[in-house]
């Protein structure tokens, strides 16, 4: 099946520091989605990227899709305690519409 590598697995930051998680695929992607799961909660959709080199922003979150459409990143500027949770990249390639999740990056923000 499709290979998804997401790093790091865990990240501890002090409140106010920046955070980045990376997602890499072994195949060219048609698009990529990002989800956030709060502790004790369920995954919630954040954004979808479709175009090569696409960059999208949501307040302090910046999402990027690689030029070759094989990787993506999520960057959070000036983390807050509300950013705590696990961030998943979710892939689709070819004609597949099946959401394939990475293992996620758990963000821990220390006040």
């Amino acid at each position, binding site marked *: 099946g499709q290979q998804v590598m*997401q790093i790091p697995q865990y990240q501890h930051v002090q409140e106010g520091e920046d955070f980045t998680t990376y997602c890499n695929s072994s195949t060219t992607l048609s*698009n990529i*989605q990002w989800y956030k799961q709060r502790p004790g909660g369920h*995954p919630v959709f954040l954004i979808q990227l479709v175009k090569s080199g696409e960059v999208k922003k949501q307040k302090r979150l910046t999402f990027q899709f690689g030029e070759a459409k094989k990787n993506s990143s999520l960057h959070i500027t000036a983390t807050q305690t509300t950013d705590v949770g696990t961030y998943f990249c979710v892939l689709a390639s070819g004609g*597949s*519409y*099946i*959401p394939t*999740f990475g293992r996620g990056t758990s963000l821990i923000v220390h006040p």
Partner: protein
Amino acid sequence: DVKVTQSSRYLVKRTGEKVFLECVQDMDHENMFWYRQDPGLGLRLIYFSYDVKMKEKGDIPEGYSVSREKKERFSLILESASTNQTSMYLCASSRGLGYTEAFFGQGTRLTVV
């Protein structure tokens, strides 16, 4: 508000029992999915369905079966529960054949003793 509802938040079952996990969505979505989530392993797909009475195996279907008799309902069945099936089970749905946002239920924490 869109909604995916799982029948139980917590379940405790005995080894060898047949277990039914129910999921209902009210968005008229074609696609429905069952995942299990274990620490450090992310979400792994068990089964999915893209239409009534249609089902496809995901990455880890062994020990599970599914049923989709109605569009809004997708059931996950553990034929004979085992302790290694203790996990968080998440149901999701999405619209159509395109790649669209998936909506998740609140999850069922299943413990097999």
